[in-house]
């Protein structure tokens, strides 16, 4: 920008463009004012935000297509990898204390109030007559976590039974669950909405989504399966855009702020698990720890998952196509 060097950086008001995945919206809309107050206090600079909330994949694609976001919060590490691939984000983005992750959650099962079908575990989803909801992993980042959880639980079960991570058994487990699918919506939110409007008996979704609804006064039972996956959602500065707009400093500060206690508490208010160990410790009673919880690494990391589960003719495809 012409004249950028004449004016001291602090004195100029800046605009930060934020592209986030939809589930994070409520929390972010509380965090942004907090950051603004903090930053004003610190530097005297006012930061105006332009926010966009879309499904994680959509957001990533928009940014690659030219949407000028400076900071992005996405559902999956994989989506940030796409940005790295497009040269928008430095490959070093996740070399920090939490590997670039800003929130955590786990995949749980939500049932109607009182859990009328007595659902306890993923296993129960295979029973005939149980109508199951999860979104479509093609379009929804949340759904990939859901499928990962079910598949992982299958692996865990096989491992407990005969000591090996039997992929065939896990796949069969996925097939059995999928047999009871009622609807695969386009996003986690849409799936949740359908559940709320009376469709299905059980929804597989983020823990924070259910907690947020319950906090709003909707009556659901949250069933935490003994073995499920730990969800981690990343944040990243879009280096190219931030540099071009000359808002590097504010962008970095905003990301930094997200790690702060203040922000993490706000996230927690909306049902997320903190990434900050001290805080996690403090809130341990609010978030049950499933005994057999596993992370994406149990499945071999995102690269492996992409190559086996969601590959072109991969396991998920075979489940869908009934092969």
């Amino acid at each position, binding site marked *: 920008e012409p004249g950028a060097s004449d004016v001291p950086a602090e004195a100029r008001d800046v605009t930060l463009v934020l592209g986030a995945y939809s589930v994070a919206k409520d929390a972010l809309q509380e965090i942004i004012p907090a950051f603004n107050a903090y930053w004003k206090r610190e530097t005297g600079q006012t930061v105006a935000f332009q926010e966009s909330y879309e*499904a994680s*994949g*959509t957001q990533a*694609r928009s940014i690659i297509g030219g949407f000028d976001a400076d900071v992005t919060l996405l559902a999956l590490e994989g989506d940030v990898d*796409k940005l790295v691939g497009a040269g928008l984000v430095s490959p070093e983005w996740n070399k920090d204390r939490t590997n670039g992750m800003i929130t955590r959650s786990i995949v749980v099962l939500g049932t109607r109030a009182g859990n009328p079908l007595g659902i306890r575990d993923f296993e129960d989803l295979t029973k005939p007559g149980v109508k199951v909801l999860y979104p*479509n992993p*093609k*379009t929804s980042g949340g759904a990939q976590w859901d499928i990962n959880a079910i598949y992982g639980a299958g692996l865990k079960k096989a491992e407990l039974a005969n000591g090996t991570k039997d992929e065939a058994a896990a796949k069969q487990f996925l097939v059995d669950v999928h047999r009871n*699918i*009622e*609807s*695969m*919506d*386009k996003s986690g939110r*849409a799936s949740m909405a*359908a559940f709320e*409007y*009376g*469709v299905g008996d059980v929804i597989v979704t983020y823990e924070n989504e259910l907690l947020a609804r319950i906090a709003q006064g909707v009556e659901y039972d949250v069933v935490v399966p003994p073995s499920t996956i730990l969800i981690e959602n990343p944040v990243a500065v879009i280096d190219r855009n931030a540099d071009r707009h000359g808002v590097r400093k504010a962008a970095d500060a905003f990301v930094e702020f997200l790690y702060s206690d203040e922000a993490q508490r706000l996230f927690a208010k909306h049902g997320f698990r903190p990434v900050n160990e001290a805080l996690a410790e403090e809130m341990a009673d609010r978030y049950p720890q499933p005994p057999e919880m596993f992370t994406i690494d149990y499945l071999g990391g995102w690269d492996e998952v992409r190559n086996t589960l*969601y590959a072109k003719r991969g396991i998920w*495809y075979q489940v*869908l*196509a*009934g092969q």
Partner: protein
Amino acid sequence: MLQGRWWSWGFRSTVMLYFIVLIIFPIIGIYGQSFSSGWAAFAENLTEPLAWKAVLLTVKLALIATVVNMLIGTMSAWVLIRYRFPGRRLLNSLVDLPFALPTAVAGLMILLLLGPRSAVGGLAEQLGFTILFHQPAIVIAMVFVTFPFVIRAVQPLLEEMDSSEEEAAYTLGATKAATFWKVILPNMLPGILSGAMLAFSRALAEFGAVVLVAGNIPGKTLIASVYIFGEIESDNTIGATAVSVLLLTFSFLILWTVNYVQMRRKGG
């Protein structure tokens, strides 16, 4: 005089340019995209069972929705133009509602009105079938969003129609029904067809309303536009555009045939 020529030449070129840039370019773009990695990739994306099943399902349901709309649309257009009854103007003004409603709201409406908790949904459930998240819901959504087309295409024709043809039929002994079928209907036919074409195309491509009320289960309730959306989101632009191209080509062939037949009939 020469000035007049220039004007008309300018108008022609502007309109044609607009048409080419706005309509033809993007469409060529879609074709270009789908073949951007060669014929093999294109073919592979289409021979994908999930893809062609979605296309088949979409075509089938869109056809059903179009036929339904041709029937109720023709009837409604007729009633709204030919009969005078209280509330006619209001009904006439409601026709375009499905367009004005965001398709997401349309989907939501269907969800709320036909879902398992609603009276209709409950009744259907008792009769042993589900509407929502199954094929009936898709058809209903398609019928809803394409409702105005046939009506709006037929109405002006009915208004412009010369009544003497109808009178001639009466004097030849044709009953009202026969006159309708043989004289009035053929006169409305261009409107019905052009409305139906639009409705069909739109139903083929409808996304917002359907995605909310269809189960999107591949092979069962996954329609093409949702499939396309999935492919886009999972970064398979070629797969998405390939299916699009298939639907487009199909639409184009139908439209062309209809136009051809109509032009042939008119000989001009």
